[in-house]
């Protein structure tokens, strides 16, 4: 077990971005992002579409190669190796896998493998990566599926399941690898509204169990209830961050206030809802 860097308060830093930037061609998508996530912390990334929140999350997993700055996963530099003369080069695949080994990711589109049964989806990385026997992998897969309430679907095919069930399988597939950090990229955005709850419920349980989580979401209710910290991005920059109660009730930046106002207007059923600073979240 490596010794993790500590924050001033003595918390372990699980994931950290320092001055990270990301460009697509001429367009700067992320500008000088610094973000530090502690063990067991649940951080929600919110912001308008195009604000860079998904790119930020994907950069934290090195699914996008960030250009400047650094990302550290449990104290290890992610994605780059220091080369001679201070230059850095993209890590070899084996090194990248090593630094990412304790990181799990859940995607908006679930990304289950449709040619494998639910159980096989969960078992695959256990067998190939962790070198477990089929029997052991299956046992672990069933235990993990039990956690997301889908053990009875173990031998079903992914495309026979509802979106919510598929996403829970995707969560189980990540969880089976016993990650220390879970990244969620808009996990409920592709779901029918009535299926959102079951996925959020599973994520809530994970948070209660102390999982370190970074969640890109449009579910402000989830962010308000579960997040320890909400980070608001706009134009590729962190505009504001803080505890959800503080952030949602008293946004200090006009952009966040406007974002919350738009959100409330979109999501209010009746016109007589108080429109101001989001007290009804």
């Amino acid at each position, binding site marked *: 077990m490596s010794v993790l860097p500590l924050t001033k308060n003595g918390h372990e830093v699980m994931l950290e971005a320092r001055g990270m930037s990301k460009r697509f061609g001429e367009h700067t998508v992320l500008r000088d992002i610094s973000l530090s996530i502690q063990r067991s912390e649940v951080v929600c990334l919110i912001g308008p579409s195009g604000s860079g929140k998904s790119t930020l999350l994907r950069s934290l*997993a090195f*699914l996008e190669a960030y250009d400047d700055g650094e990302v550290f996963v449990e104290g290890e530099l992610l994605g780059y190796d220091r080369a001679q003369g201070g230059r850095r080069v993209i890590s070899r*695949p084996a090194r990248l*896998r090593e630094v*990412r*080994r304790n*990181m*799990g*990711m859940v*995607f908006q*589109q679930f*990304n*289950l*493998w*449709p*040619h494998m*049964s639910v*159980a*096989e989806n969960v078992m*695959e*990385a256990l067998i*190939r*990566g962790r070198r477990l026997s*089929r*029997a052991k992998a*299956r*046992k672990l897969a*069933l*235990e993990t599926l*039990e956690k997301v309430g889908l*053990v009875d679907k173990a*031998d079903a*095919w992914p*495309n*026979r399941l509802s979106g919510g069930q598929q996403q829970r399988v*995707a969560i189980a*597939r*990540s969880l089976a*690898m016993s990650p220390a950090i879970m990244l969620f990229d808009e996990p409920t955005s592709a779901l029918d509204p009535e299926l959102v709850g079951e996925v959020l419920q599973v994520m809530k349980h994970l948070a209660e169990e102390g999982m370190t989580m970074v969640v890109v979401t449009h579910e402000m209710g989830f962010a308000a209830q579960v997040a320890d910290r909400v980070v608001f991005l706009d134009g590729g920059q962190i505009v504001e961050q803080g505890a959800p109660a503080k952030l949602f009730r008293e946004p200090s930046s006009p952009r966040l206030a406007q974002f919350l106002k738009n959100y409330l207007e979109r999501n209010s059923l009746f016109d007589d809802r108080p429109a101001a600073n989001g007290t009804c979240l």
Partner: protein
Amino acid sequence: MDFSVLTEHAGEIGSGFLMTLWTWIGGVALALAAGLVIAVIQLSAGPWIRGALRCYIEVIRATPFLVQLFLLYYGGPSFGLSLSPMAAGLIGLGLYGSVYFAEIFRTGFTSIPQGQIEAAQMLGLTSRQIVCRVQIPQMLVLILPALVNFTTILGKETPVLSIITVPELTFVLTGVGAETFAYVETLLALCVGYFILAELCSRLGQWLERRASLYLTQGVRTPRTLKPQETAA
């Protein structure tokens, strides 16, 4: 017309037929293997290697098979490469077919959603495992019709091998025709022979496609029955 010529030379014709079948299977096997390798390298290699492969594909596609074969068989010795007619024929078919199969495989690879690959990467699978376990099983189902189609086309290129004296069906039957002046009978027999081969191939292809589409819609491969110790406690 007198088809007795055919029965008189039945032995030769039979062995010619088998030779055609064998060069076809051998050529397709070589072409498939080389095509897959080319496609995988194209996926992962840097720009220089990709460019070189692109050139190779363009050159092979833009030149006739006959010319390639001549170059390999008659031109080979000038490059220190002396091949028997059979070896030249097989390698020629393999090279010629590889680029078409490579293009088919490449389309197959790009048809698998990037997200599935990212999910596999985040779970720590190696690129080789991703190719073998995630991409190939899914894409085979999709590209099977194209593969079968080109396999049939490659089968119909095997007569070209007769020109470098590989004793396959065309070589044998045109020989018999020249010897006995029964040109029409032997050419008709030739048509029947290739028709049988193409028909065999397309039947096999249809059967495979049916299996594959059942596999995709998940009817055939019902999940394995559980052994007792595998069931979670």
